[in-house]
């Protein structure tokens, strides 16, 4: 059965669930949760079916490639550079697989089948309807055509799978979390249905985001998740989040910061449409790989760099990277399931997804990729430092999310998109697990989030503690937990990139930064674990005695996620680590035709690189490729690096163990007073990033205005806060004009009429003169007329 064709059901069903919950806000009560969960589980099942179908197609494509190559070798007039499949190296195989998986797409005879057929053969292009169709009148412009179409391929299938899985778990968890337990009596908050409505709407938007076959559809999802995020962060809109922000303010902050990013995204979209004439991902990728690109859109072109940078700005907004990461820690104002689902597992990965989707575009611009790598590494480092001294358990997790997102971008920055996605994949599980466990703790402690006021909870809530521990080990990167495989692979890729001549130092620095961040990660994560669960409690006796394990709907989810944190990494075990033959690098192999198309394209078409093994992480470094000698056989010391990073993580663990294992804060406090104090201050204030923005945008303008005294008063101040005021003032003036006098209204109408009529009356001679094709017919006619009239009069006489 053709499940890919049914993919539209996935967002549709979530939207319907959202609608039902939204409309039945007051009446549904507890049922709202079940509706959402049922819808989400349904989407998970459908996603799983789609995933297996996509895998089947990919396997068939492999076989087709083998067969095709076999036949081609028999024919010597074929491409002489190609050899028989079995003798080909992995890179060549990948190229071929990509070609055959999406054969209709790559077929130059039939360049755009996805726009004509409802669903093309091998890939999964589900065309629903043509949304915007504006044919261009002038030949020089592109027809604007936007289809409401979904595209299913390996990348989408993976995203669908883990979003629906983690989403289902979080939804189930939320049904337990959102009901308040007051002495055994279950109370359903009036906002319960509203909450699930927003959550379902969020899921629908996220699905649209990842399924969209073009920028516009993706943008709908992109804005949709932003909007839902705003609604959910501000869900408890009348509560205070911290001393500065109410929850509603936090929502607003997220919204505004995201607007900045979205602005970049939109500009990038316009630039791409302007240059390439399409907004469809497949068309763009097709025209790029076919070389049908205008100036500036080729390798290292100006426009490609500008467009990719602008799109990346959008990604930094959504995925909380420097400089737009400040919203994510405040986004923890939302209910914990929201934090787990939106701000850890799904929405924030949208930026990574977009970059991976557009890998061909990004590979064409080494500059952008370098920027992405630097931003990623810096964000990872900065956020990890900030996470070291936080007290709020969710805050720690928020900074760790930012940090892990940084790792993902680091991976993308060195050109290994598949590994970035792999980290997204593993991170979704262990981060969801962490957040939900934290939520379980918070729930049990009645909304206490400060880790300094916890401790010793292991005995009280063992399931939660075990889940938290498993996820902590995973995120810290210990073998054989999930985080180890993804993070280690990222570091390995960065290390590979550092093998080039030209940029060796650059990538080595990034590697060092990444490795140090890994140490910090292990430290702050175990710190939070120890502070929360081990040692002596720092709570009041009475409160401590009331703590109990969460209900099964929550703890069951935690256990499932804990198991996932252990095992999901095993789908991509690199052969350099444990040689398993066919079982090595399953994940990467699956994604390869999509995520490495850019690398293959660069390798083949830009550098004519056809033989030897290419570690894709290194392909990006154009300079390296030019001499073409070094990388042919590079196999990094993968095992060695893995052991090294394990050791680094162990150091982090060790420090945390020493300082916090018994729940005694004295040791840490002593350390803070020691030479480490500056570090601690930086961490505690999160690099004063918020204050920096405040200073930059608020106080900065104030100071500048003081310096330029009168200019300020009339211009800077005027522009910064004045435009709104001017509008209002004008509105008030206009309101006074509307004084209810019918004769004044008549006068205004008359003034308007006079404006046109006098304009016409005074300008009329110039109108007639200025038009070429018009010669004043009045003047010759006047002559003839007068002549005729005279004649007539004469004849009368």
């Amino acid at each position, binding site marked *: 059965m053709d499940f890919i064709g049914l993919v539209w059901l996935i967002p549709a069903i979530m939207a319907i669930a959202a609608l039902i919950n*939204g*409309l039945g*806000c*007051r009446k549904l009560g507890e049922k709202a949760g079940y509706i959402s969960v049922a819808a989400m589980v349904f989407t998970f099942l459908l996603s799983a079916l789609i995933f297996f179908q996509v895998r089947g197609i990919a396997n068939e494509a492999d076989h087709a490639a083998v067969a095709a190559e076999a036949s081609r070798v028999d024919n010597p007039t074929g491409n002489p550079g190609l050899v028989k499949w079995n003798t080909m190296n992995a890179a060549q195989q990948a190229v071929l697989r990509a070609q055959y998986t999406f054969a209709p797409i790559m077929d130059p005879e039939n360049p755009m089948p996805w726009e004509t057929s409802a669903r093309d053969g091998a890939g999964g292009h589900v065309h629903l*309807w*043509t*949304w*915007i*169709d*504006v044919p*261009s*009148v002038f030949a020089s*412009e592109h027809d*604007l055509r936007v289809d*409401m179409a979904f595209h299913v391929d390996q990348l989408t299938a993976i995203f669908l799978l883990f979003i629906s899985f983690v989403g289902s778990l979080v939804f189930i968890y939320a049904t337990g979390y959102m009901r308040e337990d007051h002495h055994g009596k279950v109370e359903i908050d009036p906002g319960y249905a509203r909450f699930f409505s927003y959550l379902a709407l969020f899921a629908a938007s996220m699905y649209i985001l990842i399924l969209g076959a073009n920028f*516009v559809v993706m*943008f*709908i999802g992109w*804005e949709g998740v*932003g*909007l839902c995020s705003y609604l959910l962060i*501000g869900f408890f*809109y009348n509560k205070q989040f911290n001393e500065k922000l109410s929850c*509603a303010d936090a929502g607003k902050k997220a919204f505004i910061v995201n607007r900045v990013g*979205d602005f970049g995204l939109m500009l990038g979209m316009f630039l791409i449409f302007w240059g390439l004439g399409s907004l469809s991902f497949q068309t763009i990728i097709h025209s790029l790989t076919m070389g049908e690109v205008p100036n500036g859109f080729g390798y290292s072109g100006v426009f490609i760099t500008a467009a990719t940078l602008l799109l990346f700005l959008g990604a930094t907004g959504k995925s909380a990277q420097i400089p737009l990461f400040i919203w994510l820690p405040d986004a923890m104002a939302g209910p914990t399931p929201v934090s787990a689902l939106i701000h850890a597992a799904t929405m924030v990965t949208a930026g990574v997804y977009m970059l991976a989707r557009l890998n061909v575009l990004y590979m064409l611009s080494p500059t952008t990729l370098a920027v992405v790598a630097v931003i990623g590494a810096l964000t990872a480092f900065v956020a990890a430092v900030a996470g070291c001294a936080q007290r709020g358990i969710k805050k720690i997790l928020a900074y760790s999310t930012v940090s892990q997102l940084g790792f993902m971008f680091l991976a993308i920055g060195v050109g290994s998109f598949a590994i970035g996605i792999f980290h997204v994949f593993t991170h979704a599980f262990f981060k969801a697990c962490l957040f939900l466990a934290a939520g379980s703790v918070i729930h049990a402690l009645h909304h206490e989030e400060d880790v300094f006021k916890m401790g010793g909870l292991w005995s009280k809530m063992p399931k939660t503690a075990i889940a938290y521990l498993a996820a902590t080990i995973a995120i810290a990167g210990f073998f054989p937990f999930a985080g180890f495989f993804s993070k280690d692979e990222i570091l390995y890729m960065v290390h590979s990139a550092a093998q080039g001549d030209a940029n060796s130092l650059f990538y080595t620095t990034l590697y060092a930064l990444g490795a140090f961040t890994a140490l910090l990660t292990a430290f702050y994560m175990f710190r939070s674990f120890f502070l929360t669960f081990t040692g002596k409690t720092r709570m009041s006796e009475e409160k401590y005695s009331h703590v109990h394990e969460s209900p099964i709907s929550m703890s069951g989810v935690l256990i499932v996620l804990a198991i996932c944190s252990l095992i999901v990494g095993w789908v991509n075990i690199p052969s350099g680590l444990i040689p398993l033959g066919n079982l090595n690098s399953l994940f990467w192999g699956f994604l390869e035709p999509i995520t490495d198309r850019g690398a293959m394209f660069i390798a083949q078409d830009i550098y004519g690189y056809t033989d030897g093994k290419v570690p894709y992480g290194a392909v990006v470094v154009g300079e390296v490729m030019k001499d073409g000698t070094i990388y042919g056989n590079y196999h990094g010391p993968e095992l060695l690096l893995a052991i090294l990073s394990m050791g680094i993580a162990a150091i982090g663990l060790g420090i945390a163990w020493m300082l916090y294992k018994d729940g005694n804060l004295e040791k840490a406090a002593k350390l803070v007073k020691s030479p480490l104090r500056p570090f601690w201050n930086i961490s505690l204030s999160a690099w004063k990033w918020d204050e920096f923005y405040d200073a930059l945008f608020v106080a900065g303008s104030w100071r500048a205005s003081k310096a330029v005294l009168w200019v300020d008063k009339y211009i800077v101040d005027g522009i910064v806060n004045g435009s*709104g005021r001017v*509008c*209002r003032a*004008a*509105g*008030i003036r*206009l*309101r006074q004009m*509307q004084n*209810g006098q*019918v004769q004044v*209204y*008549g006068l*205004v*109408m008359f*003034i*308007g*009429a006079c*404006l*046109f*009529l006098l*304009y*016409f*009356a005074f*300008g*009329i001679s110039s*109108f*007639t003169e*200025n*038009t070429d*094709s*018009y010669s004043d*017919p*009045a003047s010759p*006619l006047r002559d003839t007329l007068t002549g005729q009239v005279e004649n007539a009069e004469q004849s009368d006489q």
Partner: protein
Amino acid sequence: MNPIENIQAYVPTSIHFSDLLQFAILLLGGIACLVFDAVSTKEVSRKYLPMIAAGALVMTMASCFFNILPPPTETFIEGAFRSDEFGQLGALVILFAFLMMTTIMPSLVKKRNLPAAEVYSLTLFAAFGAVLLAIANELLTAFIVLEIMSLSLYVLIGIDRKNAKSTEACFKYFILGAFASAFLVLGIAFLFGATHTTFLTEMAEVFKAGGVVVTEAVVENGVTIEPAVVQALNPMYVFLGFGLLFVGMCFKLTAAPFHMYAPDVYEGGNTPTVMVVATSSKVAAFAFLLHVLEAMSHWPVFTQPVIFVVGFVAIVSMVWGNVAALVQVNFKRMMAYSSIAHTGYMLVGAMVYIALPNMLEGEKLEMAMIAVRQAILLYLAGYTVTSVLSFGTASYIDGEDHMDAYRGLIFRKPAAAIGMAIAMFSLVGIGFTPPTIGFMGKFYLFKEAIQYGFVALAVIAVLASAVSAWYYLSLVVKMFMREVDDTQAVRLAGTRKESVKLFSFDSMTRIILFASSILIFILGVFPTMFISLGESLVYGFTR
């Protein structure tokens, strides 16, 4: 030919009243309402008259799907009418608002003790006037159907005669409306003086030829004598005529600065009628304005100055409407200014429409004009559906239009609040509201403007609609993120002790409100469907 021969030789060719059959249903319905009321008691007529009215409207809407009107290349009823997109698809849009009005009216009729028969028959007559105005091809016919529509609406606005506000609104609407129609008539007179005809099709011929011509070429002794210009076009008359006519039309379109009546009338009038004034009369007036512009744009002199004037009105409307709406505290007044602003956006489309003949030729020109008409109609349809939703939802909150009455509506009437929020998001129409018709309408309209080089105007329009986001969304915030504040509402309501009461609607109204909120999204995601529906209705083909 001399006049007597002319008249004697005049063979009526195309008086087929059956062409207007679908609209005659409205007329019959209106008369049926009066007759029914005469023979039945008050209660019975109150119960069944809305059904008759709604039935007539639904039948007309249904008949719009049967492609009864002749295609746009032909005129009918002796050239008095010509149908294009606005004839059948626009009629649907117009009648949709009227249908909504008939469903909300019963509760109002009951509550305020209004004369039922007159209300429903006038509603149907107004609908009749509006749909005929949309296809009028002769200036005098247009004037008369405009008056049919206007007189009905004047009376409907003031139908609640015990209410001083309502009567005052009626008075203002009437006086200024009559003032504007005097401009319109003088404009028609001058155009008649310039072109010797009031038929737009003939007028277009005159404009093409640059003067009144002998219509047929004569062959004498094997030599073809070209049609001669017997009376050159007098540009002064044309411009004066157009200027005056445009004033009259701008009044109906509520374009600034001829909009001054709108806020007062919207505030004072009863909500269902105001809904129709804001939407249907605007659709009809736009259709007629486009007919006029199409006829006149064949004259090259005309283009530049009129682009200037229409652009000026568009900019003033956008700026004035949006800026004045910022400070409003009354919902209906705010909607009035918003309606002014939306007229401004649509006038941008009208401006492009005038400019086209100077840029393109032949088939391309035809296609481009159709595209612009469709863009404007799409926008109008979207605006109508959205306004129906917002005014209809506003009718839930009876008699209190202050914005604070909407505080915390989500907690009291979630469906109404969600509907209103959808309407507001659609009205914002930029930024993050892509799947709504408000966005798509603006997109199509501004795309046309940018394509033909009116970038500055499109930018102004986008900026103006960015300003509009403030007041639309502040209402959404009021509904969703504020507590119900009864004391505030009581203070505002003045003497009314029971604070803000909520109407309960009958199921028909609910259905239409639900349908409009769905339509906002359906039109937003399938605008091409709407356009191809128009093409199949009007031109008999689908792309």
